[in-house]
């Protein structure tokens, strides 16, 4: 008796797995050195780090560790002396730093860097004009007023020259300006340093919502362990090298417990994954009852 063996069924051709989308921002072997006459100081040493959409990062580190420099390189304010910074797989030098800053990245500076001859409102609308951000309805002025209001600045304060605002109010204007630009990447250098606890908590919630609901990548340089505890990923910069530690240990404020991040990492979720599939955000802190700024679609035809 012979047993018939069924003919081998034709094997369907295997479909290649889709190539993973590049991270929204990648720092590859980035080093940066300052020259001061003959003296050369290397601030960042061979940084390799990917930043994903929908993620809220904090960067911790002692003063002088290069956090602000890292932020400047990532936000396209400066070119690294070695290595590459790329946005969605495109080298920034190829994309153009100005174009990158205009369309994809916004920065909240530690020193606010507001235009001092303008009102708070004008600072925000000017940024929208430059970046070409178009609010869904009501025009730029109305949108800017809403943003400022959401950050605790009423109409009278919004129409006041920024030099007549307190440090905390100026910081909120700087935040509103960055939010108004509607970019993919938001960088902030000590954004809550001059804010009271309630307002700072509200700002952190806004960052979280920008990351988790609008799919933006938010990178915040801070000394605040509390802020770091609210972020998705905590990076530590020490002696020019970047390491990552788990978010659940970030709040301890114990530096040096992270692991080196020489190898590139990717988020468990694809950058293209809808926001609702991303890791859930921590519960909203008590001081964050402020309304979330409405999403601002960018105009398609801006240049």
């Amino acid at each position, binding site marked *: 008796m012979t047993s018939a063996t069924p003919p081998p069924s034709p094997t369907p051709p295997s479909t290649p797995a889709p190539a993973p989308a590049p991270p929204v921002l990648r720092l590859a072997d980035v080093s940066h050195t300052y020259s001061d006459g003959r003296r050369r100081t290397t601030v960042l040493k061979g940084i390799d780090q990917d930043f994903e959409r929908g993620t809220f990062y904090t960067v911790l580190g002692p003063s002088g560790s290069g956090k602000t420099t890292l932020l400047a390189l990532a936000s396209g304010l400066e*070119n690294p002396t070695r290595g590459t910074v790329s946005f969605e797989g495109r080298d920034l030098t190829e994309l153009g730093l100005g174009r990158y*800053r205009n369309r994809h990245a*916004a920065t909240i*500076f530690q020193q606010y*860097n507001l235009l001092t*001859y*303008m009102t708070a409102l004008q600072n925000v609308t*000017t940024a929208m004009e*430059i970046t070409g951000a178009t609010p869904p309805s009501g025009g730029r002025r109305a949108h800017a007023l809403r943003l400022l209001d959401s950050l605790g600045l009423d109409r009278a304060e919004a129409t006041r*020259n920024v030099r007549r605002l307190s440090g905390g109010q100026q910081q909120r204007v700087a935040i509103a300006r960055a939010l108004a630009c509607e970019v993919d990447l938001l960088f902030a250098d000590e954004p809550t340093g001059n804010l009271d606890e309630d307002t700072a908590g509200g700002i952190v919630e806004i960052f979280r919502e920008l990351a988790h609901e609008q799919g933006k990548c938010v990178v915040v340089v801070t000394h605040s362990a509390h802020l770091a505890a609210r972020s998705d990923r905590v990076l530590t910069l020490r002696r020019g090298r970047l390491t990552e530690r788990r978010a659940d240990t970030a709040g301890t404020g114990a530096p040096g417990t992270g692991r080196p991040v020489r190898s590139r990492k990717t988020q468990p979720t694809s950058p293209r994954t809808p926001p609702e599939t991303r890791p859930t955000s921590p519960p909203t802190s008590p001081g964050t009852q402020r309304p979330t700024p409405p999403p601002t679609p960018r105009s398609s035809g801006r240049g």
Partner: protein
Amino acid sequence: MNFVKRAGLSLSGRRSRTAALLGVFVVICALLLGGFLLRGAAARQEADAQRAVGVDVTVGRKGLTADLADRLDVPGLVHRYTAELPVRAVPRGFTPLTSGGPGAGGGGRRERGALEVHGVRDLGLLLPFSYGSTRITSGRGIGPGDAGAHVAVIERRLAERNGLAVGDTLRLRSADGRRSAVSRIVGVFRDPTRDPARPMPSHMLPGNLLYVPMATARRLGTGPARVDRAVYRIGSPDRAERLHTEAARVLGGGGLRFTVNDKAYRDQVRPIQRVGAFADLVVHVIALAGALILSLLVTLQVRERRGELGVLLALGEKKWKLLGQHVVEVAAVALPALALAALAGALGGQRVGDAFLDHHGDGDTDSRSSSSSGSGSGSGSGTVAAGAPDAPLAAPTVRVGPADLGRVAGIALGISLVATVVPGIGVLRLHPRSLLLDAA
């Protein structure tokens, strides 16, 4: 055009700085405009002076006729000219002057022609008149418009002797008695030459000299119309060479007498030229100084505003728009400054022009003598006529014209552009972070 709007916000937000920049611009524009106005007024007055004063060139040659003299009236080279055709004539109905004593004319022996009649085209160009030794005391002289008219200008002594005045009629007959002419007296002149002490023929007495138009002299002449000399007024000494060439071509080089008299020119035109040259210098110095001052100011401003530039660059603003904003800001200050300077020029320019251009005229008038022919009805020491060297030049007109404004605007905007763009480019070569760090 958000950078234009930003420029407006910047100007209104920094009022004190804007006012300071406006002040500097007003001063620079006013000085520039003043220089241009002064230069323009000096140029106009120089041109007027060249026409009115000019350089007198006397051309003489054996066989020179009135027709040949006419051919030297080269358009564009000669402003005015006259020939002098001397003839003798006999008075009819009035008595010529006599010197008295033996040998004097008119004492009973009938002279062939007791009067010296000179035919002229333009009396003011004759040397005694242009130098001012001889002056019109009543009426006017003979000008180009009198060609063909029956007019005459007589010496004061002859007029007094016969009770003649402007408006009276003279009857003259040619020396051979064949032709006569009737002329109306239009002017009386005074020749300072005294009557000779010794007896002389009547026609040689200074009081017996009459001036009539060329046509009248030709009619009274008995021989070929040979002119003594012709006087040409040209604009400036450097044109004399051209006239000489022309005279040699028309008259032939042999025996040509060519005399250039530029004393009046030197006395009157040169000071105006000096004012013009001074105005030129003023314009250049102010333009240079203004450029430097504004460059420094704007450069300092650009440096002061590094932080702002850094912020705008960080937002992704285009560099040309940042430069555009600064240019618009400076231009927006320069244009009102120009308007204010124009207003100041319109109000005060005339006074400044008078102060510069009249000053030298007042000082020089006394040092010159003069005379002439064109017009004048004075008495006593006489009046000068149009065209005489010290005839008062028309007051210099200092007016703000579109051309002057255009030049000042061009210079002011040029300075603004250079002063903004050059330091701006230097700053904008930096990365925004460097600018922000510098500004911090």
